[in-house]
């Protein structure tokens, strides 16, 4: 019974402003901190293809037959424990400072991997490196079960992490 009420002048003006804002909707990444380590951190190195896809929470167009929405319970430790070791290492190194990294670390520990804080690398408990030399000291590269990784690389296995995300 109240019927429609014509908008007052003031409201019409507000609507115009809202409408123009509507065409500049916030992007999901506007509310997210840029994490150190993402490639686009070095702005000058962004090229046309990379930057666009690696802003936080930028939807990544993947083929339609890929899973399009987060899997149920994909934020649980149980889920992470079922991921492959390589995947866990990938998550650990490329999603630092996030809950994903935390869950990956927990899952790796459950697989008896140990993170060596001083040398910032993981190794299986029984495979503690015998020799830690200059090379390992230098830089921030992180080694993990290098032989296995090397072997997999030889077999042509590579990460296409844009799909993984």
């Amino acid at each position: 019974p109240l019927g429609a009420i014509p908008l007052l002048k003031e409201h019409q003006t507000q609507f115009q402003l809202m409408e123009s804002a509507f065409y500049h909707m916030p992007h999901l990444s506007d509310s997210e901190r840029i994490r150190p380590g993402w490639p686009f951190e070095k702005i000058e190195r962004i090229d046309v293809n990379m930057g666009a896809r690696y802003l936080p929470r930028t939807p990544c167009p993947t083929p339609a037959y890929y899973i399009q929405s987060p899997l149920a319970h994909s934020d649980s430790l149980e889920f992470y424990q079922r991921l492959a070791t390589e995947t866990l290492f990938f998550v650990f190194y490329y999603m630092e400072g996030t809950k994903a990294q935390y869950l990956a670390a927990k899952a790796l520990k459950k697989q008896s991997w140990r993170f060596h804080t001083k040398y910032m690398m993981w190794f299986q408990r029984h495979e503690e490196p015998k020799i830690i030399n200059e090379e390992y000291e230098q830089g921030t590269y992180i080694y993990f079960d290098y032989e296995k990784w090397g072997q997999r690389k030889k077999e042509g296995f590579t990460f296409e992490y844009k799909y993984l995300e």
Partner: protein
Amino acid sequence: LGQDLTALGLNLNSPDNLYPTFAGPWAEHPCRPQDIDFHVPPEYLIN
């Protein structure tokens, strides 16, 4: 009549709180673990 509120991308049956993974009023999906800041041990922050 009205919206189907179960189709707004929120897991209303979740036993856990929604706000920690709430991705914002315009998002169709909640935040994923890799979207959410987490206070990890400093030595994990390698880059």
